[in-house]
């Protein structure tokens, strides 16, 4: 090939040859690319994070380097630009293009880190100092260009001693400088200058990449140049990134490796060939070429050769035209595809689907139609579970499919070739489905048989959310179907996501409002109100739930829209401060506090619901607080009781045989708290030798559960004092009844014991004293009885003699006595009889004191009526008026009460004897001191209250015997009866107006 071109070149058809050579160099060298290259790129989490941080901030320096970069009406286009855009798509990020005037400036900017990345760069050692290079994305050849009239220069060696132009700073420049120092290098600022110098003969040659050479030659119309040979310098274009960004280098390499050979070819065709074509299209080219050909003819070279060249040219031209037509057609088809797809998408979006299921069903139909398929499915995919769930399948599948029990749920591992879309994360096409395939696992029985099959994963971000499978298109599935399906489904999925977001939002709103209205806890939302200094000063209620109304007892309208200070003017500022912190810092808070105005305790959880706002979940914990306070109170009281009761408390852990004492225990046992003291031993040793056995036995019995531990024992303290201890203990047992711990009390009862002892001693002597005293009393009593007995017998006897013999004297010797004598006898007799009466009364009085009371329930009114009846019978004809209050029920001795009432009523009867009208009354009243008392009132002679003291004394009389008979014993007897009943008797009287006697009978229970 090169030989032919050489021939052509030698025949001055250099430009053709250059063009041919370009066309025949494989446009893209065998840079490896993966077979199924349209899959998404695999980036590590770090790389993704790096990219997302730097997205839009990666600066790429660019300058016009045709055909890599060209400026077309303010926009940059070109081969490398296509690669940049492709990488942006693959990596999902944007680069920032920073334009520079020259390549030199770009390099300088890269060194200075004013840009982060360059492209269309060749790797050189010098550049590697500050740049990291990606793999080459395009590989072209460097050519040697000379003036037509210049011979030689077919390789770099032949350029020895030549003046060679190179772009200053270019990779070629660097390479030549290092490897061919013998060359006379003439660096030029740009290719145009260099080519012009070659053309003018200022330099002998220029080394330049061929595509650029052709571009400039065409653009400038330089015609006297030719390609003399190939420079042995690889022209590999790479991206390069600042050396401190290795991640970007790795990412770019990954991105580049995802670009398929086909894509590379199409890019290359687009730019490098266009460039070639332009060369031939240009008028300059043709004019100059024809000129050259005429010259060739004129120099006499063969017409045949010219013709041959011309035919070749025509052939080339034709193929270029055909390609142009094909490309236009391709573009038209792409446009049609877009239209079809957009219509389908529009229909889907306008389809009134109830839910995702329905929407996807409809989308599947559209996808089938769009790709010309016959059947299809959509499986939803869960990346976490690695599981497929069938969402939609086409009606035809159902009609044809006879799977008995269709499985709608598949684990990724179960799937056959249709799961490859997920496993490889890229579309899969099988246009000869019935053919053998290592990944196919076979149909389920009855499954419809497929001819052609395509499946595409649907991504949301980097997650696969579904796979769509289509089958049985008439023709083969191709890249276009994939693009159509992916673009359609991605559009659909936007809609699905939106639909789900709305549904989630609605569900969330429903859940929230349900919760808000039904929770037992109060829930309220507020905005904080701050003062000028920005400190929280108040807060306003925005919303409260029903539980909050119940809890606070105030209706919603009292809260919402009002500030807390309006509703609760006495609110503690601590509440506002606490909530202010939440609203202003966003830090959630929970605490318990008392709202004095509501009289309740609340536990609140507050969080910042929006800037400057806060929401509060309140629990009414008043009851719990009360219990806690009560418990605390009780604990304090208990402590107080332990302290004030001077109680020694001990606890025994039976598992470890460890005993612990409180301070009072040490105090009781008279020892100080010392380390390493074995307290069990200390207790045992302290026991009084006499009490030790039963105290230990009681403890053992308590552990056995035989009886309570509550002994009293003596201990001997180290200082020798003996103390009495009252002990109590409870044994705490596990579920099986085995004792775990013993907790006990010790109380010093020495003082109590001493007191008991002295009391017992006192009681012992007391009994003796009582016995002695009783004996004395009994003796006195006996003497009194003897006296009374003697009086009864001996005092009355002589009186009877006096009376009897006086009578005998009067009877037997009355005739011998004068009137005076008889009168004296009668006086003697009267005196004796009165003496007898006195003795009888005295005896009666003395007997009352000795009588045993026999209290019974009796009616004083009834007794009084009987007595009065007797009195009136003895004195018929005396006018009287009695008034006795009925039912004067008392507990008293009947015989004694009869005696007392006989005296009182007898007196009343006696002292009213001279009244023309007798009024005697008896009844019940209240004494001045409020006691129940009885009275006997008459309208008789009464008495002078000056002598009331003498009234109840024996033998004391307030009236003459001649006026009213009586011994003066009656009231003394009455008083004794009343006293015997524990009562009191007193009298009120007015002379000649009558008297009233009062008495009480409080009770007789303890009067014996």
């Amino acid at each position: 090939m090169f030989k032919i071109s050489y021939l052509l070149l030698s025949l001055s058809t250099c430009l053709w040859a250059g063009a041919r050579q370009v066309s025949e160099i494989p446009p893209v060298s065998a840079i490896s690319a993966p077979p199924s290259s349209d899959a998404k790129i695999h980036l590590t989490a770090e790389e993704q994070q790096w990219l997302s941080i730097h997205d839009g901030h990666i600066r790429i320096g660019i300058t016009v380097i045709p055909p890599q970069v060209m400026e077309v009406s303010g926009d940059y286009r070109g081969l490398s630009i296509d690669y940049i855009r492709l990488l942006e798509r693959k990596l999902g990020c944007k680069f920032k293009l920073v334009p520079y005037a020259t390549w030199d400036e770009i390099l300088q900017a890269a060194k200075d880190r004013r840009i982060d990345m360059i492209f269309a760069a060749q790797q050189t050692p010098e550049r590697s100092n500050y740049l990291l290079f990606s793999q080459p994305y395009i590989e072209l050849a460097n050519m040697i260009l000379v003036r037509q009239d210049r011979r030689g220069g077919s390789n770099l060696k032949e350029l020895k001693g030549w003046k060679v132009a190179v772009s200053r700073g270019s990779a070629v420049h660097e390479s030549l400088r290092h490897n061919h120092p013998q060359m006379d290098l003439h660096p030029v600022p740009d290719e145009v200058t260099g080519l012009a110098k070659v053309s003018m003969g200022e330099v002998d040659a220029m080394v330049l990449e061929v595509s650029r050479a052709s571009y400039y030659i065409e653009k400038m119309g330089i015609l006297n140049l030719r390609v003399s040979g190939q420079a042995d310098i690889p022209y590999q274009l790479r991206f390069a990134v600042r050396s401190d960004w290795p991640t970007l280098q790795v990412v770019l390499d990954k991105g580049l490796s995802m670009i398929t050979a086909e894509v590379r070819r199409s890019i290359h065709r687009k730019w490098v060939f266009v460039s070639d074509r332009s060369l031939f299209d240009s008028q300059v080219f043709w004019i100059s070429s024809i000129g050259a050909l005429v010259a060739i003819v004129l120099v006499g070279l063969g017409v045949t050769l010219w013709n041959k060249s011309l035919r070749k040219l025509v052939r080339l031209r034709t193929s270029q035209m055909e390609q142009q037509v094909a490309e236009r057609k391709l573009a038209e088809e792409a446009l049609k595809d877009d239209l079809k797809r957009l219509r389908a998408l529009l229909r889907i979006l306008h389809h009134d689907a109830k839910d995702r299921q329905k929407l996807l069903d409809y989308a599947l139909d559209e996808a089938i139609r769009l790709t010309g398929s016959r059947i299809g499915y959509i499986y939803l995919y869960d990346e976490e579970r690695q599981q497929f769930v069938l969402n939609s399948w086409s009606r035809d599948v159902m009609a044809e499919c006879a799977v008995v029990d269709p499985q709608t749920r598949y684990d990724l591992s179960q799937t056959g070739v249709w799961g490859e879309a997920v496993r490889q994360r890229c579309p899969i096409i099988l246009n000869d489905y019935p053919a053998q395939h290592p990944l196919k696992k076979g149909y389920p029985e009855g499954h419809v048989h497929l001819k052609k099959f395509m499946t595409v994963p649907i991504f949301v971000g980097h997650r696969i959310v579904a796979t769509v499978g289509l089958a049985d298109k008439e023709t083969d599935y191709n890249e276009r179907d994939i693009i159509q399906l992916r673009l359609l489904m991605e559009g659909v999925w936007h809609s699905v996501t939106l639909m789900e977001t709305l549904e989630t939002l609605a569900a969330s709103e429903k859940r929230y409002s349900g919760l808000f209205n039904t929770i037992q806890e109060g829930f309220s939302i507020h905005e904080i109100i701050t003062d000028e200094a920005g400190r929280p000063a108040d807060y306003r209620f925005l919303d409260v739930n029903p539980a909050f109304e119940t809890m606070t007892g105030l209706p919603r309208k009292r809260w919402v829209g009002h500030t807390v200070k309006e509703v609760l003017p006495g609110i503690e500022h601590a509440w506002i401060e606490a909530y202010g912190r939440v609203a202003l810092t966003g830090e959630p808070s929970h605490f318990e506090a008392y709202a004095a105005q509501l009289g309740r305790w609340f536990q609140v959880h507050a969080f910042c619901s929006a800037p400057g706002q806060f929401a509060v979940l309140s629990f009414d914990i008043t009851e719990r607080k009360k219990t806690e306070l009560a418990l605390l109170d009780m604990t304090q009281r208990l402590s107080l009781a332990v302290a004030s009761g001077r109680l020694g408390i001990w606890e025994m852990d039976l598992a470890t045989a460890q005993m612990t004492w409180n301070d009072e225990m040490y105090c009781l046992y008279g020892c100080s708290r010392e380390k390493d003291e074995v307290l069990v031993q200390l207790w045992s040793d302290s026991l009084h030798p006499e009490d030790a056995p039963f105290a230990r036995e009681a403890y053992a019995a308590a552990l056995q559960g035989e009886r309570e531990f509550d002994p009293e024992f003596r201990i001997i303290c180290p200082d020798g004092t003996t103390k009495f201890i009252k002990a109590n203990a409870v044994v705490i047992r596990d579920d099986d009844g085995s004792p775990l711990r013993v907790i006990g009390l010790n109380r010093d009862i020495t003082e109590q014991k001493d007191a008991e002892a002295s009391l017992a001693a006192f009681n012992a002597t007391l009994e003796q004293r009582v016995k002695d005293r009783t004996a004395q009393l009994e003796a006195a009593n006996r003497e009194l009885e003897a006296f009374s007995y003697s009086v009864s017998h001996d005092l009355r006897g002589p009186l009877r003699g006096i009376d009897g013999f006086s009578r005998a004297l009067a009877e037997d010797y009355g005739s011998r006595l004068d009137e005076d004598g008889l009168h004296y006898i009668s006086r003697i007799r009267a005196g004796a009889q009165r003496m007898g009466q006195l003795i009888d009364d005295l005896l009666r009085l003395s007997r009352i004191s000795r009588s045993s009371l026999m209290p019974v329930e009796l009616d004083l009114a009834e007794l009084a009526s009987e007595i009065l009846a007797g009195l009136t019978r003895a004195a018929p004809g005396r006018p009287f008026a009695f008034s006795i209050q009925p039912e004067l029920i008392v507990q008293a001795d009947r015989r004694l009460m009869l005696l007392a009432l006989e005296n009182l009523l007898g007196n009343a009867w006696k002292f009213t004897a001279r009244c023309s009208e007798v009024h005697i009354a008896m009844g019940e009243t209240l004494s001045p001191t409020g006691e129940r008392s009885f009275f006997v009132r008459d309208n008789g002679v009464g008495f002078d209250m000056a002598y009331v003291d003498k009234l109840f004394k024996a033998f004391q009389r307030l009236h003459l015997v001649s006026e009213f008979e009586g011994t003066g014993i009656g009231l003394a007897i009455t008083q004794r009866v009343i006293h015997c009943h524990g009562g009191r008797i007193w009298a009120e009287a007015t002379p000649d107006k009558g008297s009233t006697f009062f008495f009480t009978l409080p009770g007789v229970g303890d009067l014996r």
Partner: protein
Amino acid sequence: MKCSILLVEDNPDDVELTLRVLKTQHIANQVVVARDGEAALRLFFEENQAFSRELPSAVLLDLKMPKVDGMDVLRRLRSEPRTATLPVVVMTTSNEERDVVASYQLGANSYVRKPMEFEEFEQAIRNLGLYWLILNVSPNE
């Protein structure tokens, strides 16, 4: 001695007054007086005494007497089979309850308190004589 009464009384006044009343009833000659308890018992339990063989219709017995008092006499009389059923009327100045109870417990047939006023005393004695000598039927007859 048939239809007689034994009066056991240490007080000579009472004896005289009693006999004076009985005399008016014409039964004074049927009365045997013992000046104390000892003398009274001798009449029953010694040979050739007034009641060695026959018993009186009734005994009027004073209680308070020197040496052997009325209770002793009564106890002794009741302890002897011959006099166990002899009508004994305790006639004394006192109406001490314990005397009344004790007398009946020892088997007295009646308890009479000697009234102090003579008219009442006279009436009492008259009634006693009439009752015991005439009306009453004694087991010994």
